[in-house]
């Protein structure tokens, strides 16, 4: 029998932005699968990431490999994803956001840290329990041109999840199910025998979404799902994703670099920089009351498609590039590009926490920010 208990250790280690993990002790596979299948109340945490680390070793030598360093793609991040919400993760290329997606999909093995799905640490699962988790966490990929096998028909692509998890749909039912899915994502069900290259980018992304929905997952991880699409098609796909979230009661982890789109779709937003979470909060907290200098710079750099609104907006133009994740700066990772940086920033790594000065107040600035000198600055609204 699965026993529920509070994991005190996790509660101590975890940064305050996350709730304590209720781990489920499952000694047998059946118990683990049962825990994975159990429903989660809306608004309760469904996925809890704790101190997740992924280092890619840098090796030298052909036959006898010697590790000479590591690319610290993800370096200790923690967050919760609540049932029914959309958590946006933003950051520039190389910040580790796509690696987070792969770790959550168990496509990469974590170097350290835990990922709890309904209290089960999925980094330690295997076999049937892992398969059950995979059924419940699905992914929508960035590039609709490379994420669909060009040699398979649309019917085979969307039906493949049923081949791999035959318990979800009996064989005779599959064709009808695939056609239903096509209909749900706004494609003509008669297209079932066509091949991916016969569709436009937006249509292909709909096919990718249909594949993600096939197993009725609870979480969909979207890695830049619209960045390869034309502007006029992006809105269609975003609207479709919102509609599906309501219809199927999905939780989204929405990874993107486009801050406007993330604001539109997300309930909460996390900002990543060089493998660390710089700031996390609700969309209003992050966009209207950012306290981390990186978030402020990022937001102020977004070109706004309205010349009038742009005037009088403060612009922070960072100099230089993102440092290499193989050799990140000491202390605060952002300090090399930060205009506020002081000696303390090089010596002491700021923790992701509600800044002291805002702790007692009730302002929207009181959200977790990993900066020694966090202060509020509105950069998206005209002064």
């Amino acid at each position, binding site marked *: 029998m699965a026993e529920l208990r509070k994991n005190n250790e996790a509660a101590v280690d975890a940064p305050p932005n996350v709730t304590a993990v209720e781990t489920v002790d499952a000694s047998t596979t059946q118990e683990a699968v049962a825990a994975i299948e159990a429903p989660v109340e809306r608004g309760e945490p469904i996925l809890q990431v704790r101190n997740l680390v992924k280092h890619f070793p840098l090796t030298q030598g*052909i*036959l006898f490999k010697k590790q000479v360093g590591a690319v610290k793609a993800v370096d200790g991040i923690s967050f919760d994803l609540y049932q*029914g919400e959309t958590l946006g993760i933003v950051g520039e290329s190389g910040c580790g956001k796509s690696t987070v997606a792969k770790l959550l*999909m168990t*496509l990469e093995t974590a170097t350290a840290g835990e990922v709890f799905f309904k209290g089960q640490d999925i980094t330690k699962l295997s076999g049937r329990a*892992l*398969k059950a988790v*995979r*059924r419940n966490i*699905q*992914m929508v*990929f*960035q*590039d609709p041109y*490379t*994420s*669909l*096998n*060009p*040699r*398979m*028909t649309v019917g085979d692509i969307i039906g*493949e*999840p049923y*081949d*791999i*998890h035959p318990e979800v749909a009996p064989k005779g039912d599959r064709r009808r199910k695939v056609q239903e899915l096509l209909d749900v994502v*706004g*494609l*003509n069900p*008669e*297209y079932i*025998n*066509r*091949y991916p*290259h*016969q569709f436009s980018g937006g*249509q292909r992304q709909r096919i*990718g979404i249909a*594949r993600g929905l096939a*197993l009725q997952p609870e979480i969909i991880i979207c890695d830049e799902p619209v960045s390869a699409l034309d502007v006029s098609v992006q809105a*269609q796909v975003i*609207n*479709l994703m*919102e*509609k599906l979230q*309501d219809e199927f009661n999905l939780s989204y982890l929405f990874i993107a670099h486009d801050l406007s789109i993330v604001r539109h779709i997300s309930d909460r937003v996390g900002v990543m920089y060089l493998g660390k979470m710089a700031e996390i909060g609700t969309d209003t907290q992050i966009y209207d009351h950012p306290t981390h200098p990186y978030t402020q710079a990022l937001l102020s750099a977004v070109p706004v498609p309205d010349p009038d609104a742009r005037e009088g907006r403060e612009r922070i133009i960072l100099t230089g590039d993102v440092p290499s994740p193989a050799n990140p700066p000491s202390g605060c990772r952002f300090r090399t590009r930060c205009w506020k940086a002081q000696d303390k920033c090089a010596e002491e790594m700021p923790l992701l926490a509600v800044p002291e000065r805002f702790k007692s107040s009730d302002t929207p600035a009181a959200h977790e920010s990993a900066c020694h000198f966090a202060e509020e600055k509105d950069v998206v609204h005209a002064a």
Partner: protein
Amino acid sequence: MPDALEATVKDEALDAVDAQAKAANASKAEKPRSLWSDAWHDLRRNPLFLISAVLIVLLLAMAIAPGLFTSADPRYADLAKHYLQKPNWGNVFADDWLGYDGQGRSIYARLVYGARASISVAVVVTVLVTVFGGIVGMLAGYFGGWVDTILSRVTDIFFGIPFILGAMVVLTSFEDRALYVVILALAFLGWTQIARVARGSVITIKQADYVMAAKALGASTPRILLRHILPNAVAPVIVVATIALGGYISAEATLSYLGIGLAEPTVSWGVDISSGAEQLRNEPYVLILPSIMVSITVLAFIMLGDAVRNALDPKLR
């Protein structure tokens, strides 16, 4: 969260949009077109392909049913006709059309019957090297790491052996030089090229997002290899195999000419080139005619390979 009413309004608006999108698509009457059927569509219009295909069909017909082309027996020697009967160019397809060789055998009949040995050696070798080299390349490319290190080094070792020299060494160690010995000798040394091409192709394909998508679904390794990797990685292998097939025909001829490949009484172009060489000065056609057959066959397969390569090239679509 939006309230229920808002959600309904939103859904309706979205549905309307979707319905229109569907209607717009439906108006385009388009048939399912796989990449292979697209390639076939291209090939049918390519003169290079048509010429090579006609030649290959003719050669295959000769190999399978030589009786359709000539009624003469390629082994029947009428010494009275020994070199005496020059080609009778006007008498097309008759026994004496291309004259007689040193043993008084009909050269035309020998060319027709020779196709079987030459082509079957080449086809069987190609099938063997494609299967074996393909599997080695696929495993090395997909699994990487130490599997790749070991398989690639072994491939490199075999690749380093000079093809003809290696075949000579292998063949001289066999007493009996039957068809299967020649086939095994060529396949033993020939698989490396395919393995290298397959490995490269698999390495490219395995990084594709659709392979990642299959893994994320929990697909098993055999499933990923057979459903996703193989169908996408096979195109360049087919092209190389087609071109290599031509190469094996000339390799067979070379070895037979050197006297270590096929030997009498087997009828093959290589054997005929070998015996024709003795009389090169007096009766050059005895040598030249089988040589032309070899050249035409090699050329046909190389042209076919090129045409297939062009048709499958994704850059053109």
